[in-house]
């Protein structure tokens, strides 16, 4: 599997470190149901069979966090963006 890094170009996945689902959002700790919301945030995952948005860190290249949209059935990568939304590292 090769990941097309927006800055470095296509690189082997051994250059990257995987974190996991990029769609989960850290909840507001002061909200009334924060304990339940944090449980869901920390532990529950959609774990889709198909397109999955996920964080990868390009430690062997530009040191940027990426959001990769990848098909978990085929390992095809549809989209890669910088996690911070910027255009360049």
């Amino acid at each position, binding site marked *: *599997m090769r990941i097309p890094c927006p800055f470095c170009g296509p690189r*082997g*996945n*051994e250059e990257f470190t*995987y*974190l*996991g*689902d990029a769609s989960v959002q850290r909840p507001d700790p002061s909200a009334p149901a924060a304990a*339940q919301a944090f*449980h*869901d945030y*920390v*532990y*529950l*995952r*959609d*774990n*889709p*069979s198909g397109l*999955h948005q*996920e964080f990868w860190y390009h430690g062997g290249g530009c040191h940027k966090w990426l959001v990769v949209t*990848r098909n*978990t*059935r*085929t*390992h095809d990568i549809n989209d890669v963006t910088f996690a911070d939304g910027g255009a360049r590292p």
Partner: protein
Amino acid sequence: MKYSVFSLLKEAFRGHTGWTPAWRKAEPKADYDVVIIGGGGHGLATAYYLATEHGITNVAVLEKGYIGSGNAGRNTTIIRSNYLLPGNEGFYEWSMKLWEGLEQSFNYNAMVSQRGVLNLYHSDQQRDAFARRGNAMRLHGVDAELLDREAVRRMVPFLDYDNARFPIHGGLLQRRGGTARHDAVVWGYARGADMRGVDIVENCEVTGFDIKDGRVTSIDTTRGTIRAKKVGLAVAGNTSRVGALAGLRLPIESHVLQAFVSEGIKPAIDHVVTFGAGHFYISQSDKGGLVFGGDIDGYNSYAWRGNLPTVEDVMEEGMAIWPGLGRIRMLRQWGGLMDMSMDGSPIIDRTPVGGLYLNCGWCYGGFKATPASGWCFAHLIARDELFSVAAALRLDRYATGALIDERGAGAQPNMH
């Protein structure tokens, strides 16, 4: 038909013309007391123990493909009970005890071979950690021996003891651990369940659940709708996908784990040996092939195949303990889908949906757990209570904080 030396002799004298299929190809009925989804080792063991231990025989096992075509047929066949934490150790030891009487119990040769599982350690710190684990095992009445370097050398003389980076200092040995024939385990449970009236329905994929007033009433499948009083989910690898059909969102990620077999060689390695500085485990099959594996690929996957960096990593780890591996050709490799749970331990529990029970999150450890998983899941489904040794394997432990995190890695499935 009961298998014995007499049935073998009788068939030998009549040209082996009298053997009958070991289980029926059942058509699904419209109504069951219990439906188990997933015809792998765990699902079939559950059906078997429902019939033998609880007298519930109006049971169907639904399998999307053919039985044993998932992870039951895609593992490295190791059985052991060398865990540290109380929530796990009692459970896996229950499994080990069931393995020891399994073949007599279901009258099928599962080729259970208690050849010993040897975990190598490579530093003083790791020796201390292994001593602690061995002591924890012995406190649970499980056999464990801490071996020094020379004792290990007598058992497996061909390893690289003086590796510059990972010298072998000794090992933790569980003599009762070993291997079993994975397909035969599936077939034995299938035959045992079928003999007692369980319907094993293959090529039957579940497409939805009918849930009324918070209780599951029937299951939609590719072979029609089936009513059921209770439904057990034993579909590790696809738990999130099938669970989502019932509205469940679970603490599971699916990951691919690769395993490898070399060409057949003469008997070389008598035990199961694991590399402590990384994650590598190797044994030799009865056909002579070396069976080995390492870490999961490390990212969500339903692809049933892995990538080359992990292959390279596994081979490097193998070479680090056994340089002779470099002269042997790798023959085959395959990938299975692991239910990686958020703390690295399994779940056998009820779900928020009435009548729907969950068996999932087996991570790397599904095969060795097969008998106890079936036993405890059957107990839960039949009596609606958790069996003693599985009392900690609850779904709500993520909310209560009673996690069972052997590795201490936190809620990061690819680190367990």
